[in-house]
């Protein structure tokens, strides 16, 4: 498949670039890329490639959640009007399933595999980023709300600004497990908080 794809891809013309500056690989113009390939090895390749595109796309647009029922977002990513092809939602689901297996995504437990968090950055990486931010801002031993971390004035220039609540929770779980933070229980995201300790970075 890989051989065929790259050969075929060469004849696919200019790769699509979105208004946001995101550039699809030229493979995006390859019609069979939009059909679930029945051969196991081909499918693995195909889902890997789609996984990479999804991660890049989500990273570029700072998106966190993939919702199979959110066709507005998905249309831009999973369809190609030029060749009149689109991934159907079963195939997207199968691709996400592969990503979940690799740890690149995680299903929302309550969504019955309709929504997933895309980890274009691992919670461990976020954890390192947030704890060094805490250390550098001298916030050790103080209490922060989740809202403050994700949307506060202090974190405006940080990469985790506007981080998805579920990703933030995962990140906090990592920090709590390491013993560098303790979380408060709150009724909802806005009432959640965390205390960082003086344990260094």
């Amino acid at each position: 498949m890989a051989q065929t794809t790259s050969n075929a891809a060469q004849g696919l013309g200019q790769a699509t670039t979105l208004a946001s500056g995101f550039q699809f690989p030229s493979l995006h113009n390859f019609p069979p890329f939009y059909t679930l390939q029945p051969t196991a090895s081909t499918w693995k390749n195909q889902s890997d490639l789609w996984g990479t595109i999804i991660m890049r796309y989500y990273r570029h647009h700072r998106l966190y959640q993939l919702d199979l029922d959110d066709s507005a977002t998905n249309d831009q990513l999973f369809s190609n009007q030029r060749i009149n092809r689109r991934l159907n939602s079963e195939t997207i689901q199968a691709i996400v399933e592969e990503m979940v297996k690799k740890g690149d995504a995680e299903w929302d437990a309550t969504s019955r595999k309709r929504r997933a968090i895309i980890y274009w950055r691992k919670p461990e990486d976020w954890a390192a980023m947030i704890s060094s931010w805490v250390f550098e801002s001298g916030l050790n031993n103080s209490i922060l709300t989740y809202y403050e971390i994700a949307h506060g004035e202090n974190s405006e220039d940080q990469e985790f600004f506007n981080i998805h609540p579920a990703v933030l929770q995962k990140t906090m779980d990592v920090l709590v497990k390491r013993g560098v933070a303790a979380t408060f229980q709150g009724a909802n995201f806005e009432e959640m908080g965390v205390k960082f300790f003086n344990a260094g970075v």
Partner: protein
Amino acid sequence: MGGKPSKPAGAKITPHDRAILDLKVQRDKLRQYNKRLEGVVEKELKLAKGHLAKGEKQRALLALRRKKFQESLLEKTVLQMTNLDELTMSIEQAMVEKQVFAGLEAGNQVLKELHKEMSLADVEKLMDETADSIAYQNEIDELLSTRLSVADEEDIEQELDLMIEEETKAMLPKTPVSALPELEQQEVEEEDEEPIPTKKVAAKNKKALNGPVLA
């Protein structure tokens, strides 16, 4: 501590922490409310402009009135937010002060314990004893030095005499050789040879005259 994995000291959430969190949560909520109001104000302004452009002065006025009201709300929330922020900061400051106090207290405790280990009486006694020892040492020094001088004084003086004598002997002959011209010197020598009374000096002179030749 229980079977839980060890956590750094102070890794606990106290009711104080909870209170701070509640304050911060309130502040966050206000901030969100604030953002919403800002959006609304902007929208009203746009509406007013739109109405005015269409010549609907009355509706533009209404929108502006609403905007004014929302702006007053905004001002209030900003004030409330400042209050909340100040309160949280005061609490945090107080907590820091409490930690400083605890640190000072611990330091004081250690100092006290150390002091307990050396009472004033003990120190005084120790100092007295030390002073005694020093005095004793001084006495020994004095004794030793006096005895030394008495015993060796004669020897030393004798040695000094010997040194002076040798030095004079070494210097005597040189004087005539360098100071007088040769002819006069011979005359002087001839004259001098007779009156010199002691054998010792004559011998010495001969030796000195021979000295340079030998060398």
